[in-house]
């Protein structure tokens, strides 16, 4: 008989081992799925995990692209992880990401065709503020009226998507675009461009800021009183209250920070890789970042690695579609398995498995 026995404290070893185990299990289950689809599982797994990094035909292009794809995921996930640790569930990062991009782009385009070097910094501030403000809506509703921030933040994603569609076809539409939706190409305008900082590395300001966010979050959580309060509020809300943590202040802070970082991610994306406001500008980074945050155990370094891994599966997944004609939904299912197995094996962190002979139980 297998029995689960709660550990007195979470196992440190398993905390590190479970993500690795989850990846291995995903490879096995995913391989079986690919085999069931009539594809060579070994080749599929190799294309997804190995080729983007080491296949000479693709690697020189794919490696930098991993950074480009991971940048926004890491930036958003870092913000989310602070709230998740404190038990504040911001599910609406996608909306905050959109609002950051919209506000930033609107700020820049308002000054078009000015060449002022202050425009890009202004756009960054506008993007962060808009993301922050969008997250303040669920924060204020929660602290004032006890509404559920999960629902409010999630539903605001749909509102943001409508605003995006409206802006792309109206307010921010390129006046020289023959009536087609979409703004001007921001990454072709010198004063609004978020360029690749070092050629062929994929490194743009968004990636730099994501790395800085990782370091800041690490310092905050390990060296700062606020970080201690965040952790305490999540683990023992009552104790936190006795320790002088003000829950409302913490909610505002966590939602605000994650909103601002998501807004920044949107701004860097719209001025760099995406290049313009378009109807379908958002591609789900805000939601994928939730997976990244958990895959990274809500730990800054873990999130950094998880973001890179997730980006790898995206880029490798596209290669697998291209080379083996594996359908896109199968790739998405594969990515979904990653989170599923992570949560499933997570049980090993908090519980240990005991084998008992029958009768005793």
């Amino acid at each position, binding site marked *: 008989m297998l029995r689960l026995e709660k550990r007195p404290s979470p196992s440190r070893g398993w905390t590190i081992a479970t993500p690795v185990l989850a990846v291995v299990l995903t490879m096995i289950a995913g391989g079986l799925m690919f085999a069931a689809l009539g594809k060579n599982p070994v080749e599929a797994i190799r294309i997804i995990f190995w080729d983007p990094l080491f296949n000479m035909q693709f690697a020189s292009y794919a490696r930098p692209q991993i950074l480009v794809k991971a940048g926004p995921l890491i930036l958003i996930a870092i913000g989310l992880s602070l709230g998740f640790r404190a038990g504040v569930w911001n599910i609406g990062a996608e909306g905050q990401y959109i609002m950051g991009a919209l506000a930033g782009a609107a700020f820049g385009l308002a000054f078009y065709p000015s060449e002022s070097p202050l425009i890009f910094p202004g756009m960054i501030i506008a993007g962060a503020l808009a993301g922050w403000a969008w997250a303040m809506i669920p924060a204020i509703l929660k602290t004032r009226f006890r509404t559920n921030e999960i629902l409010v933040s999630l539903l605001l994603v749909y509102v943001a998507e*409508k605003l995006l569609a409206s802006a792309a076809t109206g307010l921010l539409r390129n006046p020289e675009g023959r009536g087609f939706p979409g703004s001007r190409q921001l990454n072709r305008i010198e004063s609004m461009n978020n360029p690749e900082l070092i050629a062929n590395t994929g490194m743009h300001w968004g990636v730099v800021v994501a790395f800085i966010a990782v370091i800041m979050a690490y310092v905050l959580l390990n060296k700062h009183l606020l970080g201690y309060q965040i952790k305490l509020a999540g683990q023992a809300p009552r104790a936190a209250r006795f320790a002088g943590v003000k829950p409302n202040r913490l909610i505002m802070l966590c939602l605000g920070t994650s909103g601002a970082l998501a807004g920044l991610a949107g701004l860097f994306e719209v001025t760099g890789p995406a290049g*313009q406001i378009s*109807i379908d500008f958002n*591609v789900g980074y805000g939601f994928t970042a939730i997976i990244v945050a958990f895959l990274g155990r809500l730990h800054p370094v873990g999130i950094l690695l998880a973001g890179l891994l997730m980006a790898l599966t995206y880029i490798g997944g596209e*290669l697998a579609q*291209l080379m083996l004609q594996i359908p*896109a*939904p199968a790739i998405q299912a594969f990515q979904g398995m990653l989170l599923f197995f992570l949560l499933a094996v997570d049980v090993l962190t908090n519980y240990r498995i005991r084998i008992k002979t029958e009768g005793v139980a």
Partner: protein
Amino acid sequence: MKHLTKLMAVSALALGFAAPATAQDDPLQVGFVYVGSIGDLGWTHEHNEARLALEEEFGDGVETTYVENVPEGADAERVLTQMALSGADLIFTTSFGYMDPTNAVAERFPNVMFEHATGYRRDYPNVSTYSARFYEGRAVMGHIAGQMTESNIVGYIASYPIPEVIRGINSAYLHAREVNPDVEFRIVWAYTWFDPAVEADAAQALIDQGADVIMQHTDSTAPMTVMREAGAIGFGQASDMGQFAPEPRVSAIIDNWAPYYIARAQAVMDGTWESTDTWDGIGPGMVGIGEMTDAIPEEVRASAQALVDAIASGEYHPFTGPINYQDGSQWLAEGEVADDGTLLGMDFYVEGISGDVPN
């Protein structure tokens, strides 16, 4: 257990080393980038059908590949680059939003030919654009809708307020009004190309407003399901949607890309490919009209067929004056035909349609 592991390892190795069979005389590598899923039964489905037709046509002479559900923007640029790196000779990018990525990647791969659907930018000599004159099909659907409606209210599920969609609304309305002066159009903007739930809601809202004929410029079959329950009729969009015939689907506008894809692949093989801008309609077969079912009275079917023939032969253009702007001022004088430039940038309603183009 040990045995099984060994068996699995051996079979895995065997599979891993089985190199893909390659044809001897270097087949033409053709890549396709899709915005939706090949199972959408609409826009992407038809592009994929044409891809299969291309394979059918050339057999071992071509090898095709595709990537589906590719978001427009940065992801598209990456997919296109990887496709070019993997050795594609000809790449079809099948959504408007791929316009900038297509041109950006074309610049870096001058030896790969790019074909961008529904766009207008050909910045490099290795980029062509192509689209279909769907408004010709809309004219026929409008002609049928105008005569089929009993409530005189025709519902229209529009996607985004872009020239392509507005052109379709105008064309359908003009030809509905021609046969039924009392007809009214009710337009719902869904702000999506494919979202079954939203499309179904839109169809229901139109039916609640009294529409008994519904036209759609969105790709899912969800509105058809709603129409079937409510007893309304409609038209297949992008693909035939024949599974809903004879009612609610009474006819369809079908995108038929196969002839174009075959011709362009042939051109690359012959070395005669060059950058072109193609805008074909019913005549060359890029726009097909799905079978008109018995639900349509025979004389209406006959007059609709006459309209199809007149458009196909070039004898009639759906935007032939007199046509006024919405405010009543003149757009086209008697007998005047709209020029392609105006049609491509169409951002206004014609006289008789109520409401404003969302802005």
